[in-house]
């Protein structure tokens, strides 16, 4: 089953005079259960591509189907619903809500999806156990270490059983050892059948993925498979 299918994806920022072409026609297919690393130097367009794949932004040209659904031309509310149901985001800076408890942070996507209270709570506690921090439900994000916060972010991303996990430099703010642990968690999630797209500029981290897609100047430069390191 195909999770991502883009055809001639383009993104132009700014007006016609000083337009910046961030994407110049990207064709990309990602199948269900793949672990893909999206690599490229800064300015290559990988952040733009990740925003469009994550339905945070819309392309200015080309088509994009996520989990069988065409995304272009959808309204803001529809895109929000797609982000809620089909995509789990993991950011470099964790992006947890600082004033809400860990439990509530994990519950929030389910809240927007309308999951009943009791089920929400059970699933959130279950997810926290799954990412290895079962005893932190009641604390605030500020009381956790970076690695623990990223685990919370992963639990939150998994909350609505998304079709796609999108991680943007998930280890960028972590030390090597903690970064390794988080990457191991991604491997584990992949092994359980989740589709993971990991955006990074670090070839060492990209090497953990079975498939690598390299972007350069808004175009796909290379797309190859290799045994994960």
């Amino acid at each position: 089953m195909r999770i991502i299918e883009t055809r001639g994806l383009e993104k132009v920022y700014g007006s016609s005079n000083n337009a910046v072409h961030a994407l110049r026609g990207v064709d990309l297919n990602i199948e269900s259960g793949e672990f893909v690393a999206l690599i490229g130097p800064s300015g290559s367009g990988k952040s733009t591509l990740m925003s469009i794949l994550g339905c945070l932004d819309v392309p200015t040209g080309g088509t994009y189907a996520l989990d069988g659904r065409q995304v272009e031309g959808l309204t803001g509310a529809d895109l929000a619903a797609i982000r809620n149901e089909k995509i789990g985001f993991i950011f470099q800076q964790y992006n947890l809500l600082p004033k809400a408890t860990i439990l509530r942070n994990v519950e929030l996507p389910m809240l927007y999806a309308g999951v009943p209270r009791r089920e929400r709570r059970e699933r959130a506690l279950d997810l926290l156990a799954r990412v290895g921090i079962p005893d932190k439900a009641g604390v605030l994000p500020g009381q956790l270490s970076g690695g623990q916060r990223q685990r919370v972010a992963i639990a939150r991303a998994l909350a609505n059983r998304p079709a796609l996990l999108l991680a943007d430099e998930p280890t960028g703010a972590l030390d090597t050892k903690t970064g390794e642990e988080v990457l191991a968690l991604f491997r584990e999630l992949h092994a359980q059948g989740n589709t993971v797209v990991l955006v990074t500029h670090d070839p060492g981290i990209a090497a953990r993925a079975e498939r690598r897609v390299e972007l350069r100047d808004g175009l796909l430069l290379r797309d190859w498979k290799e045994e994960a390191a």
Partner: protein
Amino acid sequence: MNASGAFRERLFESWIELRANPGRSFLQALGVMLGVASVLGGFSISDSQRQQAERLFARLGGIDKLNVLPADTVYQGTPSALRSANLGLRLEDAVEGGNMASAKAVDGTSVVKQARARVRSEFADQERDVNGIGADYIPLNGYEIEQGRGFSAHELATGAPVAVLGAEAAGVFFPTGEILGKPLRIGDVPVTVIGVFEEKSFHFQEGQQNVFAWRNKIVAVPSRLIAARMEGDAYNRVDRVTFRIPNLEAMADFSRELTSLVGANHRLQQDFRLDDVYKRQERQRSQGDVYNIIFMLSGVLALIGGGMVNVNIQLASLKERVREVGVKMAIGATGGEIFKTFMTEALLLTLLGSAAGYAVGIAFSWVITRSIGVPLSIAPMSFLWATLLALVFGFLFALYPAAKASRQSPMEALRYE
């Protein structure tokens, strides 16, 4: 999820936000608090005054009364022959008025005839106002008998030589306390005391004089006694006729018919006037309403001032919260959801500010009413008005920041540093 569940979650979310920023929330609630306190305080002060006035009227025997009073018949110096030939207001006017078709609505009638006379007992000798009373005067004017009895219908009809005294008069003329059945001389007429009125007192403000003092000085006799034995008036002229009409809607019909009846009796001379106590009260009340509008306006101004402060604080805090909004959008919050969350926060702030405003407003009006010595009373409607105004303005001023927050692009909000 059902709507109430979603609202509860948003309320909880707002509570987290407010609790995390106590300083900011306090400033935001301050404007609401001042507005609510000012509306509530103003209302309750004018309410307390009004309540006090209503208490006074209740003690005077109610406000559902129509008075007929003699009017000055002399214009520019000389009365016309017709006017001087007139007899003025008579007991007959009261009796005929009570027999009219529209008099069904009349619940009681009273007449008063006043005189000034030397009043003597074995203990005292004073010049006093003497009230000749008739019909239902005692209940209609809020008097109660404390000792003895009032006048019987027979005594009133025949003008029997009997008297009922107010508490002060009783004390002056019979300091020993033995009073019932004792003789009293009013002018040249010997009368027997048959009763004493209960002492009346009413203070508009604590420490001020008793506005009912004159009622305790009353020396009451049947009006016919004054007419027949003291003034030799064969026409039974009276100084005031009062009709009690509990059904205020019937008042207009009755006054119209009464005006034409008394006018006909008085050869079409306007030597009397009608005084509708209820309408007079209404006019005073509408003056009170003007004050209420002023108080409401000052409350509204406080709410507008507070609201503008709120908009500024919200917009400034929005900068801190852009990223948070971006995160919420990334995990699936729609613009509408963000909007509702901000509005719920405004609602919660308004309610908390209102609650604080109740406390401040009550304390404020307690201090004021206390200092002018009037018992505090707050109508439930005042709370409703104050809260309603606070909600309206809280809502209006929350709209712009909430709309601004909800229209952000999730991607830009996420990248905001």
